[in-house]
């Protein structure tokens, strides 16, 4: 049964040829005069030119955020702030189809994920934090916690609008103002969000969006006029930021890389475990910091589980991200594709066996087939380094102790999954895993009320839930 193409319409999106920075409530040209081009990773077609913010632009943005913090926004009651957040949340819902298409175009991820996962979560994060805005004294952070001031926020390309929501919603709910830099390959939904801020009549300067690449991010993070830095991205860049912020007195939260273990015990519900393994590593092309990129399967069921897994992967549909039946979309950039290829090759060179389904890759665009590496050992690079792509490394274990030891034997500690029908084994395992999130008989589930963050080189601080508010508040003196 072949499915006829079922493409979502691009007509709901009106792309401009070029975009300016969003500072002090207005779109404004970059003083730097520089631009970058953002492309559709599925076909390499240029989508739009986007301004690159230089040092002078960052100065302007931080100054605007400071004025807003010391002005209207800082004096506003929590209940009033909450109204703005509710309004933003509703506009996001109303424009969710347009935003979902725009996200798929700019990022390469399938429309069914932007439509069914990203956008509902984006709206949920604004709704959730809107509810907190007038209740901060009940968050367990002291009787009258205060905002920090101006937050510098730098977000990655894997969930552009969702990561924006994770950063901006709590910052605004707690009374801070923000300067946010989206990733250079995926700036378009952040700029659409700037338009939503205008539509919601958000006071000028409360949210500022500065686009650009690494230099722009470095200038923003190092700017002395900010009180807080929040970063989601690679561990390598996170280290650089930690060094830049050290000694400045700024607060810092980092959400970094991961090499999540997905542990399948021999008594697991195997067909559902297969689904969890698939969503754990192939959701968003594996561009997920908490991806279950290391499958740890109990030796006694490996021979039963792996053929089921391969049969399931054969059914994944790779191709046009705007087709509603696409399961796997494009890799976000040529650079990321190169990195995935290099690491997958390293796996094969080190003796792992590589398997991919017989799927045809589109001729244009950045594509990598879903890949399973078996015969991987802890000593292999593919068991240790984050690949950030649709590549699953399979290891086996014999006892629960061995599973936990292997799961924890990583410099990272962001996520883990445990699959067993036995409750006591589940709890025994979960309490020993050194990971910020442990999913039980599921994987990659997110909720704004649930705090998210890492151990070890996966960063520090939490986003979401009551814990996430703490990152943007100081206790009353």
């Amino acid at each position: 049964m072949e499915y006829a193409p079922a493409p979502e319409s691009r007509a709901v999106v009106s792309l401009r040829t070029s975009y300016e920075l969003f500072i002090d409530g207005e779109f404004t040209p970059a003083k730097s005069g520089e631009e970058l081009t953002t492309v559709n990773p599925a076909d390499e077609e240029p989508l739009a030119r986007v301004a690159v913010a230089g040092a002078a632009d960052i100065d302007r943005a931080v100054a605007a955020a400071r004025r807003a913090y010391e002005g209207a926004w800082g004096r506003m009651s929590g209940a009033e702030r909450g109204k703005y957040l509710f309004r933003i949340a509703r506009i996001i819902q109303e424009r969710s189809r347009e935003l979902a298409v725009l996200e798929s175009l700019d990022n390469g991820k399938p429309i069914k994920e932007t439509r069914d996962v990203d956008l509902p979560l984006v709206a949920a994060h604004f709704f959730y934090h809107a509810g907190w805005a007038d209740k901060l004294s009940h968050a367990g952070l002291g009787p009258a916690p205060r905002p920090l001031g101006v937050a510098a926020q730098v977000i990655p390309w894997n969930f552009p609008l969702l990561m924006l929501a994770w950063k901006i919603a709590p910052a605004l709910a707690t009374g801070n103002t923000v300067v946010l830099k989206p990733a250079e390959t995926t700036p378009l939904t952040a700029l659409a969000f700037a338009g939503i801020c205008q539509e919601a009549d958000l006071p000028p300067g409360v949210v500022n969006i500065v686009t650009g690449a690494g230099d722009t991010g470095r200038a923003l993070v190092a700017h002395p006029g900010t009180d807080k830095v929040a970063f989601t991205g690679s561990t390598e860049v996170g280290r650089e930021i930690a060094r830049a912020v050290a000694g400045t007195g700024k607060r810092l939260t980092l959400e970094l890389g991961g090499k999540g273990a997905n542990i399948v015990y021999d008594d697991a519900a195997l067909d559902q475990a297969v689904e969890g393994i698939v969503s754990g590593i192939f959701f968003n092309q594996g561009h997920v910091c908490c991806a279950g990129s290391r499958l740890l399967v109990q030796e006694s069921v490996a021979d039963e589980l792996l053929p089921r897994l391969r049969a399931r992967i054969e059914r994944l549909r790779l191709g046009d991200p705007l087709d509603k039946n696409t399961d796997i979309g494009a890799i976000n950039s040529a650079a990321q594709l190169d990195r995935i290829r290099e690491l997958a090759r390293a796996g094969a060179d080190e003796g792992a066996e590589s398997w991919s389904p017989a799927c045809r890759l589109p001729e244009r665009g950045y594509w990598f087939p879903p890949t399973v590496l078996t015969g991987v050992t802890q000593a292999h690079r593919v068991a240790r380094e984050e690949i950030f792509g649709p590549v699953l490394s399979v290891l086996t274990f014999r006892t629960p102790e061995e599973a936990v030891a292997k799961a924890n034997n990583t410099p990272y500690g962001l996520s883990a999954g445990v699959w067993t029908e036995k409750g006591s084994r589940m709890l025994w395992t979960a309490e020993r895993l050194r990971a910020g999130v442990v999913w039980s008989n599921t994987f990659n589930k997110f909720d704004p009320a649930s705090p998210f963050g890492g151990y070890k080189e996966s960063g520090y601080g939490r986003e979401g839930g009551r814990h996430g508010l703490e990152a943007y508040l100081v206790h009353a003196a």
Partner: protein
Amino acid sequence: MTDTAPPPGTAAPSPPDAAASNAALRAFLHGLPGVDEVGVQARAADLATRSIKTTAKARAIDLAIRMVDLTTLEGADTPGKVRALCAKAVRPDPADRSVPSVAAVCVYPDLARTAADALAGSGVAVASVATAFPSGRAPLEAKLADTRRAVADGAAEIDMVIDRGAFLAGDYRAVHDQITAVKEACGPAHLKVILETGELATYDNVRRASWLAIHAGADFIKTSTGKVSPAATLPVTLIMLEAVRDHHAATGRRVGVKPAGGIRTTKDALRNLVLVNEVAGPGWLDPAHFRLGASSLLNDLLMQRTRLSTGSYPGPDYYTLD
């Protein structure tokens, strides 16, 4: 797309003596991997979002029509009603000869002869619900007599109900032996075993009952009588498709699946076909291995078919009631 069920030998094999005792059957059935309720519901919901359009939809609608077991199972059924239904089964749309016939007409045993006469030479099979349908609460001798009579009267397919009471009491051997006996009484007729999943309460039980019926010789496993709610749900059909897929991988024998009850719209039918395609594989996309038990589905399929070819919906009065 290729048939990519797991290779033989990887799925749960059936020990040759699994049915040797109730204890052996229990050990086998309870040794099957469990079903995670949240996970199976999520998977079914995800597959239900598949978007079947244009040419794919046209092909799927015709396939669904060919898979329909057009059913009337009412106490008030008359020979006249059954004859009308048979005429419709052979030529669902009198105005459009390109519409294929359905797979079978499903009636109570006392009307099997009427249906067989009306369908003679048409290629449409007679299916009959025997074994004290729908409760199944009758002595085995009565069930076997019911079955033999229906086959003698021209039923090529027997839809039997399992003894849910025995199943829930853990008396798997009794259920197994009844199915085996009915299969034998069927002679050349195909046996569809109705699990009545709405009464089995858990997905684990659905999986166990599926394997039990398959081992006892079922040619098809069927969700429901249509008399109990919930009837055919997507997660239940999904579990049954996994069972036949795994059994096929282990033995090479392809058992069919028939969701029945509550399938009323083209959208319902297409979602079922997507499940078949992605869970069991395209090898089951054939009336020989997948059926839809329905009474009101056919008209909606016909209306959607007309809309696809003409661009507008005809009114319901353009289609026969039965």
